[in-house]
C-alpha cells in the first residue's frame, strides 16, 4: 500500500478546506448536433441534452439527481467525468476550471472523480478477469498503488465490497447482476476517488439485491468520506441516499433543495406530478395521495418549447410561461424552484390520516 503522503505530494490541485464545495457546476450545457446527408454532412439542428444545469457538491455529501428518461441526467454524468466536453458552462473542481485543465491536473481530476455505470453487464469487459478490471486504473495512475502489493490490494477491495477475495481470477459472466455492480464499485474505489458519480447504479437490480448495494454505498461513504452524485429515476432510492436533491426536466434543473424540502413541500408542478405518480407500497396510504396525472409526453429535446420547458404539460401555464424562462430561485418556499407560479404543496402522504 502506498503512503498517502506520496499521493498528496503528486497532487497539483489545491485541497479545499472542510465544508467548501468540491464540485461546482454553473450553467452547464451540452448540445449534440443533428446531421443530415452522408457525403456532405450538414448540421440541421441540435439536441439540447443538457441546457443550464447548476449543481454544488460538498465533501462527504450525496446529491441526488432525479428525472425521467431523456432529461439529460446521464449526459450530466458523462460531462462530470470528462467523457464528453461541455458546449457551454463551467465545471469547477476544487476551484479549478476542468475545461482549462491539462496534463497532470486533468489526470488527477480523472482519478479523483470516478463513475459507476447502470448496466452491470455492459460496463465490464468480458475478456478481463475481475482482478484485472479492478486493477486496470493503476496502469495509468501508478502512484496510487505500488506495483508490488497490487494483488493484495485488489483482494482487499473485493473483500470490502462484499465479494470473495479468491474470485480475482474469475470472469464477469460468472457473477450475478448484484455482484457485477460490486465489481464496478471496487473498480471505482481502486483509485481512491473524492467524488463518485453513480449513474443509475441500482436500477438494473432486483429489489432484494438493490438494498444490499444501497447499504454498501452508504457504508463506503461513512468510512471513506467520499461525495456521491447519485443519479436515478427511482424517487424512493434517491430520497433514501441523498442529502440534497435536484429534479431535472428536459435538460435543466427545475427544483433543488434538501431531501426534506423537495419531497415534503415540492414547489415546481413537475416535481409535484412526479411525486404523485410514485406508487406507494403501504396499503394504509393507498388512495390518500393527491393524484396529478400529466397529459402527453415529454417534448423532444431537439425542439424544446420556448420559455418554461414544462409549460406544454403544465396545468398552471399562462402567457408569461411561453415568453420568459423561469429562473431557478427561491420564491418564498424556502428552496429554489424554476416556476413563475411556484407554490409548496404536500403531495406524498407522510402518515395515515
Amino acid at each position: 500500500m502506498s503512503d498517502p503522503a506520496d499521493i498528496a505530494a503528486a497532487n497539483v490541485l489545491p485541497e479545499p478546506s472542510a465544508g467548501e464545495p468540491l464540485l461546482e457546476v454553473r450553467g452547464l450545457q451540452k448540445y449534440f448536433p443533428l446531421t443530415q446527408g452522408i457525403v456532405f454532412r450538414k448540421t440541421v439542428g441540435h439536441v439540447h441534452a443538457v441546457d443550464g444545469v447548476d449543481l454544488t457538491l460538498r465533501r462527504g455529501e450525496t446529491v441526488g439527481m432525479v428525472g425521467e428518461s431523456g432529461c439529460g441526467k446521464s449526459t450530466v454524468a458523462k460531462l462530470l467525468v470528462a467523457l464528453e466536453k461541455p458546449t457551454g458552462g463551467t465545471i469547477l473542481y476544487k476551484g479549478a476550471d476542468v475545461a482549462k485543465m491539462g496534463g497532470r491536473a486533468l489526470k488527477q481530476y480523472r482519478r479523483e472523480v470516478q463513475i459507476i455505470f447502470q448496466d452491470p453487464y455492459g460496463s465490464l469487459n468480458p475478456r478481463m478477469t475481475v482482478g484485472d478490471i479492478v486493477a486496470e486504473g493503476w496502469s495509468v495512475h501508478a502512484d496510487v498503488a505500488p506495483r508490488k502489493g497490487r494483488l493484495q490490494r485488489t483482494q482487499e477491495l473485493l473483500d470490502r465490497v462484499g465479494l470473495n477475495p479468491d474470485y480475482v481470477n474469475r470472469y464477469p459472466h460468472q457473477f450475478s447482476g448484484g455482484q457485477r455492480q460490486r465489481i464496478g464499485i471496487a473498480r471505482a474505489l481502486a483509485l481512491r476517488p473524492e467524488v463518485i458519480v453513480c449513474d443509475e447504479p441500482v436500477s438494473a437490480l432486483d429489489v432484494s439485491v438493490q438494498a444490499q448495494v444501497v447499504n454498501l454505498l452508504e457504508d463506503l461513504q461513512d468510512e471513506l468520506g467520499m461525495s456521491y452524485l447519485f443519479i436515478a429515476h427511482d424517487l424512493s432510492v434517491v430520497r433514501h441516499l441523498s442529502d440534497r436533491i435536484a429534479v431535472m426536466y428536459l435538460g435543466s434543473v427545475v427544483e433543488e433543495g434538501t431531501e426534506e424540502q423537495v419531497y415534503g413541500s415540492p414547489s415546481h408542478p413537475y416535481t409535484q406530478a412526479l411525486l404523485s405518480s410514485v406508487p406507494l407500497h403501504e396499503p394504509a396510504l393507498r388512495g390518500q395521495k393527491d393524484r396529478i396525472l400529466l397529459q402527453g409526453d415529454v417534448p423532444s429535446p431537439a425542439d424544446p418549447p420556448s420559455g418554461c420547458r414544462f409549460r406544454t404539460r403544465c396545468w398552471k401555464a399562462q402567457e408569461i410561461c411561453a415568453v420568459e424562462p423561469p429562473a431557478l430561485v427561491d420564491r418564498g418556499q424556502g428552496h429554489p424552484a424554476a416556476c413563475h407560479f411556484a407554490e409548496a404543496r404536500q403531495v406524498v402522504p407522510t402518515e395515515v390520516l
Partner: protein
Amino acid sequence: MSTSSGSISSSPAPVTYDPASGPVLEVDDLHVEFRVRSGVVHAVNGISYTVDQGETLAILGESGSGKSVSAQAIMGILDSPPAVITGGGIRFQGRDILKLNAEDQRQIRGPGISMIFQDALSALNPVYSVGFQIGEMFRAHRGTSRKEAKQHAVELMDRVRIPAAARRVNDFPHQFSGGMRQRVMIAMALALDPRILIADEPTTALDVTVQAQVMDLLKDLQRDTGMGLILITHDLGVVNEVADRVAVMYAGKIVETGTVDDVFTRPGHPYTLGLMNSIPLVEAKGGRLNPIVGQPPNLSRIPSGCSFHPRCPRARTGAAAAPGRDCVGDVPPLRLVVPGREAACHYSEEVLGV
C-alpha cells in the same frame, strides 16, 4: 360478442360456462422446466391460482422466480424446446386447455386470453402499421375484411386514449412514444374482448408519470369490460395500488398469497417480509435498509427443503427444528395459516406473530 363468431365453423364445442359457477381461469399445480444442455432448469414447480371475473391478481417476484414463464405457459407461447410443461392443468372457463389439440387451443386463447408485454417496441412488428397489427385480430379470428378491421382498429385506439387515432392508424410503431406504444399493445390485446388479460411488467420500461397513465387506463378498461387481470411485476408499489390479491413467487413456487392489504400489512412469509424491508420509502427518509442476504437461487440447483432457507434468518434445522418442520429437509407446503392467507413456511405463525 364472444360466442357469435359465425365465420369460424370449426370452433370448439359451445362454451357452457356460467360466470357465476367459478373462476374464469384456474391454474392447477403447473410445472414447467427447461431442458438445456447444461441440465434441467426448474422454472415453475407446481403453482396453483385462480382468477375471477373483474379481479386483479398480482404475481410478484424477482427475476428468475418463474412469474413470466407461468404466464407464457398459459398463453402457449413457451419456446419448446427447450421449455416443457411437465405437469398440471390450465382451465379456462372450466376447460383444460392443455388437453386440447393445437388448433382448439388457438380457438380458445385467441379471443379469450390476451397478453401484453414489457417491451412494446419489440412486441410490435416494425414493418406493419399499428392499425394493421391491431386489425389482425379481427381478420384472423373473425374473418373481417381489411377495411372493417382498420375501422375497428381506430375505435380501439380511441378506447385506449391515443390522441388523433384516425390520423395515426397508419403510423408505424417507431413513430410512437413509449407510453403510446404500450397503449397500442393494449388495444391489440383488447380487440376481441378477452376474459383474461395477462400484463407482464406492463409499466417497467416506462417513466413514473407515464406509468401512472397506463395503470389508470388498465384499471378503467378492466372496470368497463369485467375481465380478469393477471399483473406480473416486481414493483411492490404497483401491486399495492392496482391489485386485489397477490401471489408472491420465489424459485418457481408461490410462497405466499392473500389480499394485498393483508399480505403487505402483515407478511406471513420471511421472503415477503424481507422484500418489504428492502425497499426505501418515498414518504419518509427512514433508517438503514434491511436487505435479504445472498442471491436468488440457481434454478437448476434449487436448495433442498424450503428453497428460501439459505437466505432466511428464521431457518431452522436439526435439533432446533420442530419434527417434520426442518427447513433444510422438509419442503413446506403452501397452507392456510390464517383465514384468507396461505404461506409456504414452516414457521409462518411466528412471522405473523399469532
